[in-house]
């Protein structure tokens, strides 16, 4: 049992590290695209690792399935939100500026 708990703790801590890194990136990165990059890392990997960690603790199959489902929904929603923000920013930025940023 304690072996299982250790797995949970390791995965959740790893997820928390990703969330922390994503938050720091969101606050510290210079422009919108790299900020989005940091944010998606936190959402996708952080939440995923926490879900995997909690999967060791579930008591029924359906609960675990629901958690995986929630993760996949968060993935779809998060990537879409980032795509929308990134697209808006890309279309609104003058072309020269974007080229400078990418160089």
């Amino acid at each position, binding site marked *: 049992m304690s072996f299982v708990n250790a797995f949970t703790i390791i995965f959740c801590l790893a997820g928390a590290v990703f969330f922390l890194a994503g938050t720091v990136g969101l606050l510290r990165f210079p422009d919108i695209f790299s900020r989005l990059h940091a944010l998606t890392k936190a959402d996708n990997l952080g939440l995923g690792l926490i879900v995997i960690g909690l999967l060791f603790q579930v008591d029924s199959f359906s609960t675990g399935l629901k958690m995986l489902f929630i993760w996949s*929904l968060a993935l*779809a929603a998060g990537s*879409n939100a980032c*795509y*929308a923000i990134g*697209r808006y920013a890309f279309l609104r930025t003058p072309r020269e500026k974007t080229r400078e940023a990418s160089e």
Partner: protein
Amino acid sequence: MTLLDQVFDIVVCLLLLVLAWRTLSATHLYQSAIFFIAFGLTMALAWVRLAAPDVALAEAAIGAGLLGVLLVDSLRVFARPPETGRDSEPNKPESRDNDVTTSRRRPQFNSAVASVTAGAGCLFLAYVLVAAIHDLPDGGGLTAQAAENLSRSGVEHPVTAVLLNFRGFDTWLEVGVLFLAMLGIFCAGGLVGFSETENPDPPGPLLSWLIRGLAPVMILTAAYLLWLGKLAPGGAFQAGILLAAVGILLRLAGIPLMDRVPRTVIKLGLTFGFGTFLVFGIIALLADKAFLEYPSEWAGEVILLVEAAAAISIGFTAFAFFAYLNSRDQSTGNGDTAGQPRETNPSQ
């Protein structure tokens, strides 16, 4: 209650206070709206900490989600001068980022005496509130009565029992309030209908792909939440707002919905919940019972029916809030405001 719990509660409370402060003191309205959404989501966390998951679901979906969408949509309107009639270009890129949405000055009082008095008054009010809570008798409220009658209510979750059975009257009138708010919005805006907005930035293919895939899942989740309300947190409001979210996302993705649906269906959808409550109430009256009193052997089924009707109505109304407000500014070209004089020019 461990120390860790206490620290967590204190952190959540501080976060709430800081977010509320930042919401109100931000100089740009856009910041205000975003901080307000963050405030709503943190509030949902606070509800979970207070053992009120139903309220948390409602706050996240309605308080932060729906109102957030309405606020951001209103920002779009306030961000450009109201003269965007036929003569001027409404979609000029620079007109979106002009500082009409910026409060011209930070809120301030005229004199130091006034601000000190106001501050002291606020602190006194806070003290009175907290002291009043501290002095209240600790009787447990109506918990005992609710627990005693739970077996006769037809559901197993106490909050649903209170909402739909013990205090069904409140919920009935609440659906009525939603309907009235909808009528009020119709009156404030003039008869312009639900026609689609011309979106200057089409959302791109990904959103419409996503919503086509997700809409059935969301409707299924709404039905699941409705069913779950019988024994766990969930129920008509949360399910209804989820239905509204389907409509809002479809509209944002540029898939027309409201103007494809016949007017009769819209009217029916807006009044369905209120009417179903009324029908069951009158049936109860005819059977020599109190208004909205359900027979205890049928209570579970009746509650599910009423809840489903209420959810459909709430979904329709909440979506109509957005669809109507969203489509209104497109109609600056129609007759209802064109002939009236403009008194002030906000861009000065």
